[in-house]
Structures are given as structure tokens and as C-alpha cells.
């Protein structure tokens, strides 16, 4: 009897606690943040996992510019659960580095600060500093929410040793001509039993899913950021992926094979001739530069249905979480890190590393047109390897034709659901139509949740 009434009291208390802890939502997260104050104090930053010479040199540059600021860096990868937990517990860092596709998701929920005031205070014009599509990625409701860095266009890297052996030319890797592409792939594909030993093309289905779907005419979001995953035009890219993986033993076999690649090591898939071609971001030729005497590379751009080069803007960005304690220092730090001077320092550091290690300078793709051009003019010289030179200039060309993913409050979910759909279709679990419909339903629910509050 005692127990029952105690439980009753507990229940009432719990409900009361829960329901009365409501506060008004929809406050401007940046209200009260003074970005023009002189930066000082401590700055808690989260990002720069595995910082290389490029990252370190920019960190050093920013440190020089902000002598009164003490930066503590949590150098681990961005983790969505960790981020939301920190917000829930009220203990947020001042700056967080995350993939650009997540930015609008958090912006729509009021969890990060809009940065227009910050840009004004520092005299930065977003459309000047960055490529248009890079800015579009992080714009929501007419406000820019992040400071972007890097622009990694993907293209198709060709392993010329394998191509020559099979009698295939680079022109055949034309994604606007699927028949020709499939024919080229079959010529190169080799298997032992039903396990691939050499792939004609590794399309990197889930890592580069957006490239394939958007490149073949699809549309992931509309102008307001609402998901449009079930747009029939999205089927073309997924169907293309299915044709490509089915022609090489099926997605499961292909994935197990690619999972075992020694991507960063001496026995990588190009040295071992395990691939004829692979969709790769711009940083990978940089890794392969160390093996240039063992491999012969060329590159072709991804082409859309009209045969024009196509690329996607991808990269990371810095945001200021709502409730950050030192937004002024955060603003100064972020803008310094992505200034042209910082990038030049990075370019210099990279050039030094390369000349020390004997690699190739494949350029830096910073997301800022001015920095990109200056770095290319100063540091990128003919490498003496015609193949690598062609690869480098292909990537530079493809930067121009970059499109944005689209900025959406459900951006993270759209990306996840797209991957789910692609996986389901490639494994033969669902039809393309069904997979996209399911993905759209889930993404739409996420969109509604994000915009409801």
C-alpha cells in the first residue's frame, strides 16, 4: 500500500517535471553573440582528425593570427551521436567540423548559429570567398551557417596498365554511354569462381551514390530543401550502378572485394592491378603519387546524360553550436583558417613535404577560387609523368562543373536513406522504385520532425 502511493507520487512528479520544463523554441541561436569582439580566452574546437601537413600549417597560421586565444583541439572524427549528446548536456565546443551535408540539418533545428553577422564583422563575402555551390551547400533560409573548407570533386581514375592489357581506351569510360561502359568493364573483369579478382570499374556505390544519382539527372531535394528521393529521375543512377555491379559478380561480391583493398598501402588496388578504373576524390592521386613508378594513371570526368563533365561539391565545414561560450574567437578562428593566406601556408607546407618525400604535387582543392588559382600557379608544375599531369588537370577542369548536393534540413537523413536505397537495390532486396519510395518516406518524416520545432 505504501508502495503504490509512493509510485503514484513519483509518476505525478515525473510528469510535472517533464511537462513544465518546456521553454520557448525558435529563438535565434546567435542572439547575444558578439562576433566583432576581440578574440580572446579559450577556444574549444572539435575537428582536424588526423591532421596532415595541410591541416597543421593552417592551424599554425591561425594560432599566429590569434595570439590571445588558447585553442584546445579535440582531434576526433565527427560523430552525430556525440554531437547531439553534447548539445543535450549543454556542454558544447565552440567550433565543430562536420561534413557540409549535415550543416543544414542542424541549422533547421536551431542547433548552430547563423554566421552572417560573423562574416560582416570580419569583412568576408561568402560568394567571393567560396565557389557558389560550396556556399549553397550550407545556406538555409537566406543565412549561411558554416565556413566551408575543401572541395573534393570526384572523377574516374584509370589504371592504364590494366586498360592497355585488356585493349580498352579511356574514352570507353564514358558514363553517358552505358553500353560502351559495360562492354569495357566486361573486357577487364576477371573472377575466380564467383569472387572478383579484378574489377573493370569500382563505382564506389554508397560512397559516391550522390554522384551517380545526381549525375544521371536525378534530384534529391527541391528548392526549399524538401526531400524528393522518389523523383523518377533518380532511378537512372541507381539502375546504372546495379548494371555495373551485376556485371562484376554482384554487389555483395564487389563490396567484399573492395573492403579488402589496401587503399593506403604498398599493396593498393592500383599497384596490384585489382581495378581497371575507380571513382576517386581528388586526394587519392596524391596518395598514389608515391607509387608513380609502378603505375600508369589517367583520368576522365564523370559525364552526365548529355555527355558533359559533371561533378559534385563535397567537403567539410566549421560551425558554431548554439550555446557556444566563445563565439567571437570561434568566428575569428574559422575565418582565419580559410583565408587565402592560410591556404598559401598550406600550399607551401605541402610543397615542402612533397619535395622532401619525392612525391607529386597534385594541387590543393580548397573550396575557394582565389586560393585554388594561386596555389595552382605557384606550386603545381609538370610532374614529368604525363599520366599524372593529365589526372591533375582533369580534376582542375572538373571543379568548374561542380553541382551542389542541395541544402536540406533533412540532409543527413537524405544521405543515409539514399545509401539504404542503393544498398537495397544493388543487393536485389527491393526494386528501384520501391527502394526510393521507402527512402522518401523516411526522409520526409525526418524533414517534418526537423521543421516542426
Amino acid at each position, binding site marked *: 500500500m505504501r508502495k503504490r502511493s509512493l509510485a503514484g507520487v513519483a509518476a505525478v512528479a515525473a510528469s510535472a517535471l517533464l511537462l513544465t520544463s518546456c521553454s520557448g523554441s525558435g529563438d535565434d541561436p546567435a542572439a547575444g553573440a558578439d562576433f566583432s569582439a576581440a578574440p580572446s580566452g579559450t577556444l574549444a574546437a572539435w575537428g582536424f582528425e588526423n591532421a596532415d601537413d595541410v591541416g597543421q600549417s593552417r592551424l599554425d597560421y591561425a594560432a599566429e593570427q590569434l595570439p590571445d586565444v588558447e585553442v584546445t583541439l579535440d582531434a576526433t572524427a565527427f560523430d552525430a551521436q556525440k554531437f547531439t549528446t553534447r548539445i543535450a548536456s549543454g556542454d558544447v565546443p565552440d567550433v565543430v567540423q562536420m561534413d557540409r551535408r549535415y550543416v543544414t540539418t542542424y541549422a533547421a533545428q536551431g542547433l548552430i548559429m547563423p554566421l552572417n553577422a560573423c562574416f560582416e564583422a570580419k569583412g568576408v563575402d561568402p560568394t567571393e570567398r567560396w565557389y557558389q555551390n560550396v556556399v549553397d551547400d550550407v545556406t538555409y533560409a537566406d543565412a549561411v551557417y558554416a565556413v566551408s573548407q575543401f572541395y573534393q570533386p570526384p572523377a574516374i581514375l584509370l589504371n592504364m596498365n590494366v586498360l592497355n592489357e585488356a585493349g580498352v581506351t579511356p574514352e570507353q569510360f564514358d558514363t553517358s554511354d552505358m553500353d560502351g561502359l559495360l562492354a569495357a568493364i566486361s573486357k577487364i573483369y576477371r573472377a575466380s569462381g564467383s569472387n572478383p579478382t579484378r574489377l573493370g570499374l569500382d563505382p564506389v556505390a554508397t560512397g559516391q551514390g550522390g554522384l551517380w544519382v545526381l549525375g544521371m539527372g536525378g534530384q534529391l531535394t527541391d528548392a526549399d530543401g524538401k526531400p524528393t528521393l522518389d523523383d523518377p529521375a533518380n532511378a537512372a543512377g541507381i539502375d546504372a550502378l546495379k548494371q555495373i555491379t551485376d556485371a562484376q559478380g554482384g554487389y555483395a561480391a564487389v563490396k567484399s572485394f573492395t573492403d579488402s*583493398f*589496401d587503399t*593506403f598501402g*604498398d599493396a593498393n588496388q592500383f599497384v596490384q592491378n585489382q581495378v581497371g578504373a575507380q571513382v576517386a576524390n581528388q586526394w587519392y592521386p596524391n596518395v598514389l603519387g608515391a607509387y608513380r613508378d609502378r603505375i600508369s594513371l589517367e583520368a576522365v570526368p564523370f559525364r552526365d546524360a548529355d555527355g558533359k563533365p559533371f561533378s559534385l561539391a563535397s567537403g567539410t565545414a566549421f560551425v558554431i553550436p548554439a550555446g557556444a561560450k566563445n563565439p567571437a574567437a570561434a568566428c575569428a578562428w574559422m575565418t582565419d583558417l580559410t583565408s587565402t593566406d592560410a591556404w598559401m601556408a598550406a600550399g607551401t607546407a605541402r610543397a615542402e613535404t612533397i619535395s622532401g618525400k619525392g612525391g607529386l604535387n597534385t594541387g590543393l582543392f580548397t573550396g575557394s577560387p582565389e586560393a585554388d588559382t594561386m596555389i595552382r600557379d605557384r606550386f603545381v608544375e609538370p610532374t614529368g609523368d604525363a599520366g599524372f599531369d593529365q589526372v591533375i588537370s582533369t580534376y582542375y577542369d572538373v571543379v568548374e562543373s561542380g553541382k551542389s548536393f542541395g541544402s536540406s534540413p533533412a540532409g543527413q537523413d537524405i544521405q543515409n536513406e539514399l545509401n539504404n536505397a542503393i544498398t537495397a537495390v544493388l543487393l536485389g532486396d527491393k526494386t528501384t522504385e520501391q527502394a526510393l519510395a521507402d527512402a522518401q518516406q523516411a526522409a520526409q518524416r525526418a524533414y517534418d520532425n526537423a521543421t516542426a520545432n
Partner: protein
Amino acid sequence: MTNTLQTPGVAQARPELAASAARPSRWRRALKQPKTLAGRVILAGVLVLFALLFLYPFAWLLAASLKPRGEVFDNALIPKTFLPGNYVEVWNQLPLLSWMFNSVAIALLAATTVAVMSSIVAFGFAYFRFPGRGLLFGLVLATMMLPGAVTMIPIYLIWKETGLLGTWVPLWGMNLFGSAFYIFLQRQFFLGVPRELFEAARLDGCSAWGLFWRIAMPLSIPSFIIVFLFEFQASWNNLQAALIYLNAGSVEEFTAPLGIAYAMTKYSPSAGGQGDYQYVMVASLLVTLPMLIIFAFGQRYFVEGVATQGRKG
């Protein structure tokens, strides 16, 4: 264990049984073993085969931990390139020492508190008589069947209110209130202690707490050890709690399971890593080692503890 011969009439109806009961016990054992040499060889063979199957992953783990990155995926039980340096390098790659320390500390806290508190509660149920005792103990048993998911979220929110989210406390704090399964185990044991012992101490003027601390506890040391070891293992292995409470903190504060999960992602090529799985193997082996050592010393406690569960049914 019922002796069939005590059932009336069996001895008369089955004189041969009465005879067999009179035989020495090694005859009883012999009945169970296969009679023919072939039977025994096959039995041994099958058992050895299973033993090899069970042990193969361990052997594989050891071998993989000694290989360089490019060879981790090949299946040689003897590494082509023998790289014991992995065991040195892993400490630079991952904060393994912190992880192990955290895990040990938390497991000790969890095991000690739960063993002590569960013993106290169990003694309460075993010895004292009070109204509602049966009902309350039934409630204890009922909570054993509750899926953790139902209370997972409110418990998280409760810890959030207390401000103890980033600390170790959520991972062992609830053990301060005892835990149903261990209460059951300890109660079983206490019930086996003859009441006369306590009555005698009572007459000597022993207090209730004294009955527990001076008489019941020392007698229950084997059972206590079982509880302690079980909870130590459970805490050592607990991934979900660490995921919920420690994930948002710094990597050095992870426990071993969470740390290894983090390492699996850190080195995963699809997540930007470089495929150095050999360090994941080394870490896994080092994290398993304490468990194997504990088992080597406390084996009979584990087996006895597990067997007791089934006996109740």
C-alpha cells in the same frame, strides 16, 4: 536426486536393480561411457574437432595481431611477416592503457558494490520474516525478465538530471541498489545456512547486522565470489552502457569495448581510415586476456554459477 529404489515396489519388481545398486560406483560410471574402443575413439575425435573449432578464432586472432597491415586479411595461421612490433606500436596508436584502466576501475566498482549490496538484500529476504516478503521477492524475480530497453531512456534522463552524464557513475551506480539475479543467487545460498546457527548467535546478543556480517557473509564467500566474478565480466563486456554514457566524452575516457568499437571505425577505409586492422586485433586480444586469466583462476566459480541458474528450474 531421487533414488528410484526408494519408490515402493521397484526393489521387488526389479531385483537386478537392487543388485546393481549394491555394486560399487565405478560400475555406474562405466555405464555411461561408450563400450567399444571405436565408440571411445569417435567420441574423442568429435570432441577434439569441436575443441579445434572453438579455439580456431583465438588462434586466428593471435596470428592476425602479429601481421602487418597488408596481410591481416590473409588467413595464414602462421604470419608470413612476423611483426611483434605491433604490440609496441598499438600503445601509440590507441589510448589502450586508459581504456583498460577505465574498464578495470569500473568493473571493480560495479562488482564490489553489487556483490555487497545484493548480499545484504538477499540476507534480508532469506532470514527475516516480515509481511509481504513473498510478494516482494516475487517482484525481484519479475524484474529479472524486464527488457533493458524499457527503462533505458528514463534512466538516461535521470542521470542527466543529476549531472553525472560524462562520469563513470551511470555505469556502476545502480549496483548500489543490488541486482535481481545476484540477490536470487545469494538468497539461495543463505537459505542453505541452518537457522540454528543464527538462533545461537541471537541468544548471545548478536545484532541483526552482526548476524549478517559475522556469520552469513563469511560462510557465503564462494557464492560471493561467483557474484563478484560474474558482474566483473558483465561490466568488462558492457558495450551498450558505454555507448550511451561515454560516447560523448573524450576518447581517453572510453572503456575497452567502446574503445575497440571506436578503433574499428577509425581504421575503416569507408570511414576515412587506413585499414590498420592489425591494431584492432592486438587491442581485442589484450582486452580478452584479463578475462581469460580470471577464468583460468576462477573457472569453477563460473561453471558453478551458471549451473545454479538452471537448477532452479
